């Protein structure tokens, strides 16, 4: 159950002064932030770097009281960070990392076959669709918040989300990607 929006923003405002607030914020947001970064970078280490950098940028901000939606802000920051890191890497490196992810970096808790399948299916979505699905499902953002983050219209976000779900369903039913 995701934490209350106000509670999360409160932790964000207090994280500089309180380690407990930072720990609570980390516990709440590390998984979705890491998932967002991972699905962009296809590399666990780089994704962790992106998460760390996102938190550090937040800490380096002089003021945090102007942030109204802490969840959306953190997910947007980590997404921007991941995109920036992805741009720095060459295409060849990206391909190697994708293969590396498939071979070695898959976590052990992916026991259930369906979860493995959907993780791979998400990888096969278009980048925009993948981001929307991740932000909505893993980040618990509403379509309006996603529209703001991705600079898209609300209907476009919703349409792409529906399309992504249909493609996921097709891939899952087909049993192959």
């Amino acid at each position, binding site marked *: 159950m995701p934490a209350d929006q106000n509670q999360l923003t409160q932790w964000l405002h207090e994280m*500089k*002064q309180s*380690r407990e607030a*930072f*720990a609570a914020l*980390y516990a709440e947001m*590390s*998984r*979705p932030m*890491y*998932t967002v970064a*991972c699905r962009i970078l296809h590399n*666990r*280490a780089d*994704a*962790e770097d992106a*998460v*760390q950098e996102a*938190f*550090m940028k937040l*800490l*380096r901000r002089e003021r945090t009281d102007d942030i109204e939606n802490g969840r959306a802000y953190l997910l947007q920051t980590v997404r921007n960070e991941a995109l920036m890191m992805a741009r720095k890497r060459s295409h060849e490196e990206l391909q190697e990392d994708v293969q590396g992810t498939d071979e070695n970096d898959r*976590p052990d808790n*992916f026991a*259930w076959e*369906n*979860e*493995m399948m*959907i*993780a791979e299916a*998400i990888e096969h979505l278009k980048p925009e669709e993948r981001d929307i*699905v*991740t932000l909505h*499902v*893993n980040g618990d953002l*509403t*379509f309006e918040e996603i529209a703001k983050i991705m600079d898209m219209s609300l209907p476009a976000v919703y349409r792409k989300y529906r399309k992504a*779900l249909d493609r*996921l*369903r097709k891939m*899952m*039913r087909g049993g192959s990607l």
Partner: protein
Amino acid sequence: MKALYKYRFVLFGVIALFAMLWITCGTSQARGPVPTATPMPTATPTPTPEGWKPEETYQPTSTEKVRQIWQSLYADYESGYAGHELDNWMDTKEAILALTKDADREAILKEWPKDVKLQIIDAKYTFRELEAVVFEIDTTWYYAFERKGEESIVIGTGINVRENYVTVCIDRTAPTRVQKKVISDLFERYGDCIRIDSSMSAEELRELESELVADDSYLIDSIFSDSSKAINKNYYDYKPNDSLLTFTAYTNNRGAYKVMSRGAVIALAAGLAAAILVFAFVLRRQAMQVRVTADGREVAGGEPYSDAELERLARAAQEDVSEEGRNRIFAAYERETRGN
């Protein structure tokens, strides 16, 4: 039901195919030739006796003879035929035949059935000439105005066989000045071939008559003025291509249309039923899949890999930062906040 839904398009296609086949077969059967029966075995024919002649069994009835006579007269432009009236179309006992001086009356009387009473009327104009006048007045005065979206004051024409003229009905509500002008034009062109059915008083008509030409043959009949409605009705019966005749022409073919329309109705019903079936399944599927929550997001359940199931799987498949990564982030936090 699930299999039915899965193959809904195939089902719909089969129904549509059967409907099309039915229509095609039905229509072709209605229009096509009558199928020939298998020939039955025949007996050996008996030789015809010498000098034997078949006895003529068919004799046209008097009514048929009368009909044949006036039809042949009408078909011949030189016959002098000027119209006819029958007391009864199905069983004629009395007939009136209008003939011009050019008609061969002896030949007609020779053919005429003895049991049908015939009254011959001397006529000046042939029926073809009267028809030509009717056609010209209709096209010049009636349809021409109708095409232009204007109302002509000539509202009808009709042939009077007994009196051998064309009745022209004039709109009695039109201004008298206009009526006079039109009547003047009509008489100038058609002379005593026409008579006017007008609402003008007998005095006015006489005045108009004297204004036009001092000729008794130019008859203006005011008698019809009192029964103009009846005259108008007759006009519509006479008028070619009117709605009554058009309707009759269509009803002659009603057999083929009936088959086609019945087929179309069945096809439409089948299509409608298939559409309702598909629609019901779609609704059922949507009802199973989608439930809109208070915050506007959609959740679903029921079918495997529904929206809700996909979201659940995607949520479960998310990864977490490793322990090493977590320590690195918290160490960075310590470094960043140490200065504060």
